[in-house]
């Protein structure tokens, strides 16, 4: 096998793992594969045992490679169950998380997931074994009891929901921890594996668990498909939903029940402590990427699935590595990516928009300078030389050349005479007129309507000229009675100037807007 050849040092092992991770994910979502490979690399670096890997030597490395191999051949049923289970829980948690996030109920998910622990313990005590159905029933009942307790506290006392949630979360969790500790003291309690419910162990998922998860996931998907419309309207506007006769309370409790299902099927692999993160994180990432509910749900389910699969894989590489934290880290990586690189709300996109906004302002200022040069020679002669532009803007000719090239790149100008003269295109001329017009209209508006002294208005107009829209310009024109000259006595370019498409003899008055927004 090719893998064996690479078994040299620690570094090789890490890159190998990373590659494996990447291959696994490429099938699902190509752009994300790099992320996952990066993440698995990071996780390997952070692995506590990699520090003394050199001393233990081949043994550890063989284990790791073998484990990875076992994982990807899927021959081991334990691997199949773990992977399938993790993906199923990812889908369910993602879907339900989508609703939790838009309903601003993220903390409810957290409280519910902690409240189920006593139910898990009691389900175990029912017949002293990890019977999936008994634990499922116990956990769902405990979760619903917790939800009811929150409801009761909220509606019979003056306490608000957050306090009620905190109370219930902590008290139920405390009861659960006591019960779990008790079980571990019982004969055979140590082997019960009940402690795995705290931080999760995907490898502990058995055939019975997967069957249960399939049923629960199927049910959740079916309910969301059937009642999408009802879930949507009650989430967005409960009062309206009630006014058209929808049973808002029943729909809410239905959603709560599905949420309890999601939490409970995720317990085994993710653990009580972190289940809420699997609800919230994939959905939060999806929320940043789209602004339609159905897409949000689909993305959240996909992210949940990916995080589940990756978490299961990583936890499989070493014995006793808890799955929950790894899954949550994988989901968090997706969230961080969405936060940074989301096309609309991402940090990078916003930075880019600001930057391109700045570039536009720069271009418009250049166009304005060209207009000023033409205006200074009363629009006689065509073309503006780079030297004239540079003098006007108090810059070097080289700077002016750069700006001229920038104008040409946006089809605002053509360059002639070996690139030394700027000829505005009709587009460029129109934009130049618009900017100068905005500037002078705004100056006039400030002096006339807002009574600001004429020598105070230029700086302000320098900024406003770039943001005035067609609608506002029309309003200002009207307010100023279609004035033709600014407070400094210079003509305001009008519609007739625009139509000329080239430098006119003199600007003409009487414009209403620009035919296109600036």
């Amino acid at each position: 096998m090719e893998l064996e050849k690479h078994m040299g040092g620690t570094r090789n092992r890490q890159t190998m793992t990373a590659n494996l991770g990447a291959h696994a994910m490429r099938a699902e979502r190509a752009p994300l594969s790099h992320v996952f490979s990066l993440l698995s690399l990071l996780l390997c670096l952070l692995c506590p045992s990699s520090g003394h890997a050199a001393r233990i030597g081949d043994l550890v490395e063989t284990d790791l490679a073998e484990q990875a191999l076992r994982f990807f051949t899927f021959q081991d049923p334990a691997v199949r169950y773990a992977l399938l289970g993790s993906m199923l829980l990812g889908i369910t948690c993602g879907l339900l998380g989508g609703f939790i996030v838009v309903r601003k109920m993220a903390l409810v998910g957290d409280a519910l997931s902690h409240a189920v622990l006593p139910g898990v313990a009691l389900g175990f005590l029912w017949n002293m074994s990890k019977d999936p159905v008994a634990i499922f029933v116990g956990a769902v009942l405990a979760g619903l009891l917790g939800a009811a307790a929150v409801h009761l506290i909220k509606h019979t006392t003056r306490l608000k929901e957050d306090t009620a949630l905190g109370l219930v979360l902590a008290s139920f969790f405390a009861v659960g921890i006591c019960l779990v500790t008790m079980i571990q003291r019982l004969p055979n309690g140590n082997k019960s594996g009940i402690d795995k419910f705290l931080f999760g162990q995907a490898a502990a998922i058995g055939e019975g668990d997967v069957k249960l998860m399939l049923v629960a996931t199927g049910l959740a998907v079916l309910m969301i498909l059937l009642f999408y419309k009802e879930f949507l309207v009650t989430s967005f506007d409960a009062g309206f939903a009630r006014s058209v006769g929808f049973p808002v309370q029943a729909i809410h409790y239905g959603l709560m029940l599905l949420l309890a299902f999601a939490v409970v099927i995720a317990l085994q692999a993710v653990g009580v402590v972190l289940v809420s993160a699997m609800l919230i994180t994939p959905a939060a990432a999806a929320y940043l990427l789209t602004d339609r509910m159905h897409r949000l749900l689909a993305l959240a389910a996909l992210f949940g699935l990916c995080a589940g699969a990756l978490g299961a894989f990583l936890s499989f590489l070493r014995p006793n590595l808890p799955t929950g934290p790894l899954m949550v880290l994988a989901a968090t990586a997706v969230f961080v990516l969405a936060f940074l690189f989301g096309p609309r709300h991402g940090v990078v996109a916003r930075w880019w928009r600001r930057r391109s906004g700045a570039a536009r302002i720069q271009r418009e200022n250049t166009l304005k300078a060209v207009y000023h040069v033409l205006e200074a020679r009363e629009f006689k002669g065509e073309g503006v030389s780079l030297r004239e532009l540079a003098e006007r803007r108090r810059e070097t000719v080289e700077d002016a050349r750069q700006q001229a090239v920038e104008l040409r790149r946006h089809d605002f100008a053509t360059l002639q005479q070996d690139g030394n003269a700027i000829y505005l295109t009709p587009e460029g001329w129109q934009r130049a007129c618009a900017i100068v017009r905005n500037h002078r209209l705004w100056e006039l508006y400030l002096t006339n309507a807002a009574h600001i002294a004429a020598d105070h208005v230029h700086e302000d107009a320098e900024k406003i000229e770039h943001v005035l829209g067609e609608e506002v310009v029309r309003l200002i024109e009207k307010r100023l009675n279609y004035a033709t000259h600014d407070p400094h006595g210079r003509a305001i370019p009008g519609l007739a100037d625009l139509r000329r498409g080239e430098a006119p003899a003199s600007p003409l008055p009487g414009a209403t807007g620009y035919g296109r927004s600036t």
Partner: protein
Amino acid sequence: MPSPENKVATDNPGSDISLEIHDLTVAYHKKPVLWGIDLVVPRGKLVGIVGPNGAGKSTLIKAAMGLLPISSGWVKVFGEPVKKNLTRIGYVPQRESVDWDFPVSVMDVVLMGRYGHLGLLRRPSKQDRDIARECLDKVKMLPYANRQISNLSGGQQQRVFLARALAQESDLYFMDEPFAGVDAATEAAIVELLHELKSRGKTLMVVHHDLPTARRYFDSLLLLNMRVVAFGPTDQVFTHDLLQSTYGGRLTILSEVAEAVRAKE
């Protein structure tokens, strides 16, 4: 507090009455906010509901629609209990009552107006979409159909809510402060829309917070302050005395009793 219009209305046959409220009392946390409301609204009226803060204006329309538990009394819509006639009721909630960052498009919101006719489980059809589009066009928001709602101004948001109510194709509309925080153009458009709906025989109950415009916008006024102070044609009801007893501090006893009831709990 009988008013001229009330008497006229009760003489008419029941089918011409769109909303009838009898001895309605509503309490929040045991504290009464509406006491013994009697109201008969004939079909085709454009009614402004005015009164000071805490007068129970929103509570009245919510209770009339069955959105709030009522302590006593009953409400009939077109001669039947509200629950039986929900599809004939349209509702415009307060704009601030929803999260405008919610991931839905303008079209999605207006389609919700069709949900009452669809009932549970059924999906909106092409016909429903056509209706939603027409309603959007009526409030001049069709170009925004595919925008997410967070990109809208206050006036545009209100137009979307009105389009949703239009899509309900109802006969009786309850609107909670549709003029709050909208621009002048939207305000004029809403007034025009209200009058058009009225001329088509619809009944409109509109909570309004601004007295001077209330006089111009509505042909009937309901002066409310925990109870009905007066209800009738605007020119008869918009009088100094009646407004004084609506807004002036003469209801202190009612408030004090309400306070006493609450304190005893």
